[in-house]
């Protein structure tokens, strides 16, 4: 790759100064300056590399779901540990870098100004890459908060906050020093993204540290679930959607060489989208222990969400009205069309999935996985590919290395999406129906959960094939783009010229004062966006925290013992929550299969909540006391020994590894600080209590012929597994 730093004497990079102003006859004074393409290129290269890495991990975990050998026999590569690596890599590394690439390119041009600070750009770039590396190291090591898409531990959370602020300063600095008076709608989307992601990240990451890489969520049970899915849903909204809508509004008109179909529609759907999106989070928790009113709110707003989402999708597609001949010729536009169409499909399906009757079948199944991937592979992936293919040749002043490879990528990628999504829809629907099916005699047709898993294996194989196709396309793109970079020379500082903004602005035409005032000022836009998202957030979150009746207490529910806390942390470390839910929904099909449905009051000491969002294996909320300790021992050592053909990986290291008991008191103290009522005595004698409970478990194991030291991790895990969901049974016993 070549980089040209060649400058004309007037064009030193970075700083604009008045002495470079050049009068142009009859026009306002013009300034020469340069766009920073180097930072755009860097984010672009990071997008390509992390994209391939994230997709590769995706193919690996997909293959683990039909071939347990693909867990590779080490504790660092089991599905539970690297599934979060895949999601974090594609969301924050691939899509995140793509957002920054697109924003840094378009913002400079829409503002007619270089980025505010080259130093902040560099800090942003390298800081973000370090965060990604930290994630790639900590997640396979089992250092996780277990909260989906927010798994990173507290020091990394702080780093994310700092780097996000750097991004914000750089973005607002650029907007403030701009030479274009009006803020194009893409910038509105960037501003909303910045402020909302900041709020989401701060609120959801409230945790109390135990040690350098271990913390507990400050929220428990139902509250934790609500905050998490308020975050999780809006991470989709404000990390995967709004920035990409901004990118669509900039790059699609550029690519098609025509303005957006309706600018008015873009404004209307911007405000509607950011207001409505924030309310829809509870649709992830339908039929859960979340209060009914919150679930209903989530459904209502999810349905309303179709309107602004489709407003954006139609605005994108109609921008190509009269230019469809270009789509036939231009593969980059084909990527955009498939991407925007996938957005339309996913945003129609999302509200449908939030209908309670549909959700009853789809939730916890592959259906949701398919839904997510239509959005991720189609909308985020294809838009990113299109932008990369469009940007790199322009910044390197050279044609794309191979149009043939570009075309192959498009078709391989499209086939990849189809081979991914269709089997997953079939699998999800089949799975949901099998879980619910009763025989005419009134018993479950598939009482053994594993039987339903086995039926899905062919679909999982096809999904892995689809993912491999998609990955192959991305590798082709990487080759094509790196060859393009090698053939050209990066114009690191691209000369540009724009008139200086007059200090006093006199409104002309028929526009209202208020419009011009609002639309020219970034800070009111930021505040307006903040108000829009806070209305929904506060109304959903505050009552669940403030009104005691929302979480009825159950007298028999007690805090976990010291050993159970340690066992629970092992459950979190191994990522069990990625395949097992702990939430029995109030359906006959579930109470028949698992037992009593889950109550909100059962989770009051769960920091964090572990309800899960996918059942690759069965629900575990009534697991406690279901099997003897020896069953769990054998099952963890070799799942096939107890459940033939199980696809669960083996966890033999739990039997060999010694439990780190030194952290016990610190853990109980941390939990006490967030409201778990441990007494000082319980904390002081934690290790002795732990020892006593562990001894009882090893004695029981010994009776079944199993010799294991009481200080091994497996003992703590068994203690926790045997405790899950049992407190409510004491109540039943007492009532009898």
């Amino acid at each position: 790759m070549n980089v040209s730093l060649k400058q004309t004497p007037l064009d030193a990079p970075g700083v604009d100064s008045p002495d470079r102003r050049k009068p142009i006859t009859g026009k306002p004074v013009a300034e020469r300056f340069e766009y920073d393409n180097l930072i755009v290129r860097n984010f672009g290269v990071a997008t390509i590399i992390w994209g391939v890495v994230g997709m590769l991990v995706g193919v690996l975990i997909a293959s683990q779901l039909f071939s347990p050998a693909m867990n590779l026999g080490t504790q660092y590569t089991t599905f539970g540990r690297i599934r979060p690596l895949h999601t974090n890599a594609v969301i924050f590394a691939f899509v995140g870098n793509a957002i920054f690439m697109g924003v840094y390119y378009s913002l400079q041009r829409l503002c007619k100004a270089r980025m505010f600070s080259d130093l902040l750009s560099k800090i942003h770039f390298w800081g973000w890459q370090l965060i990604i590396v930290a994630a790639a190291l900590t997640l396979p090591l089992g250092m996780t908060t277990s909260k989906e898409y927010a798994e990173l531990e507290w020091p990394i959370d702080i780093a994310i906050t700092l780097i996000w602020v750097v991004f914000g300063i750089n973005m607002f600095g650029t907007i403030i020093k701009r030479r274009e008076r009006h803020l194009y709608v893409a910038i509105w989307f960037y501003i909303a993204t910045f402020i909302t992601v900041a709020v989401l990240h701060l609120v959801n990451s409230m945790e109390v540290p135990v040690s350098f890489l271990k913390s507990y969520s400050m929220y428990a049970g139902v509250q934790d679930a609500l905050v998490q899915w308020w975050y999780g849903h809006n991470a989709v909204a404000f990390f995967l959607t709004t920035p990409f809508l901004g990118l669509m509004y900039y790059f699609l008109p550029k690519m098609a060489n025509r303005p957006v179909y309706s600018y008015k529609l873009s404004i209307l759907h911007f405000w509607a989208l950011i207001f409505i999106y924030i309310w829809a989070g509870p649709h992830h928790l339908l039929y859960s222990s979340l209060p009914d009113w919150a679930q209903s709110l989530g459904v209502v707003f999810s349905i309303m969400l179709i309107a602004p989402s489709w407003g954006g999708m139609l605005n994108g597609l109609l921008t190509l009205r009269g230019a469809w001949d270009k789509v036939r010729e231009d593969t980059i536009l084909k990527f955009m069309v498939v991407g925007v169409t996938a957005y339309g499909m996913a945003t129609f399906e999302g509200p449908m999935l939030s209908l309670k009757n549909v959700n009853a079948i789809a939730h916890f199944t592959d259906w949701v996985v398919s839904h997510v991937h239509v959005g991720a592979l189609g909308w985020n992936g294809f838009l990113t590919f299109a932008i990369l293919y469009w940007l790199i040749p322009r910044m390197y002043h050279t044609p794309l290395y191979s149009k043939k490879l570009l075309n192959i990528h498009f078709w391989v990628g499209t086939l990849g999406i189809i081979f991914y999504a269709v089997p997953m829809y079939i699998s999800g629907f089949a799975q949901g129906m099998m879980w619910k099916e009763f025989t005419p005699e009134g018993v479950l047709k598939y009482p053994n959960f594993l039987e339903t898993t086995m039926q899905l294996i062919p679909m999982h194989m096809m999904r892995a094939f689809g993912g491999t196709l998609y990955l192959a396309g991305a590798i082709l793109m990487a080759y094509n783009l790196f060859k393009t970079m090698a053939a050209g020379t990066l114009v690191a500082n691209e000369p540009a010229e724009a008139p200086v903004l007059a200090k006093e602005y006199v409104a002309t035409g028929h526009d209202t004062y208020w419009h011009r005032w609002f639309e020219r000022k970034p800070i009111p836009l930021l505040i307006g966006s903040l108000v829009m998202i806070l209305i929904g957030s506060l109304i959903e979150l505050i009552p669940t925290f403030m009104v005691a009746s929302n979480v009825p207490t159950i007298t028999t529910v007690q805090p976990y013992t010291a050993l159970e806390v340690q066992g629970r942390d092992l459950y979190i470390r191994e990522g069990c929550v990625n395949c097992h839910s702990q939430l029995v929904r109030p359906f006959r099909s579930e109470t028949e299969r698992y037992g009593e449905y889950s109550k909100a009051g059962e989770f009051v000491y769960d920091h964090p909540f572990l309800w899960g969002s996918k059942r690759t294996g069965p629900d575990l909320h009534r697991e406690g006391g279901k099997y003897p300790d020896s069953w769990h021992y054998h099952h963890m050592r070799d799942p096939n020994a107890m459940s033939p053909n199980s696809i669960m990986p083996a966890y033999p290291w739990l039997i060999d590894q010694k439990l780190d008991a030194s952290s016990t008191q610190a853990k109980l103290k941390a939990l006490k600080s967030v409201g778990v009522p441990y007494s000082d005595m319980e904390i002081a004698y934690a290790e002795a209590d732990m020892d006593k409970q562990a001894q009882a478990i090893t004695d029981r194991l010994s009776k079944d012929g199993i010799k294991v030291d009481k200080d091994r991790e497996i003992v703590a895990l068994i203690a926790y597994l045997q405790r899950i969901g049992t407190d409510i049974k004491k109540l039943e016993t007492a009532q009898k």
Partner: protein
Amino acid sequence: MFRQFITKIPGADVYMVTSFLTFLVFFVLVGLYLALVDRNHIKHISRLPLDDSND
């Protein structure tokens, strides 16, 4: 359904309805603005991505 969730929290009806109304009023105002805004002005802004002579 509506009755169910507004009766379960004391006073919830007030702020939930208020928030709906806030959105409705805001939405109507944005709609009104869009109906009244100068067409040439909108045309100018919508062409901003295309004004970049560097491409």
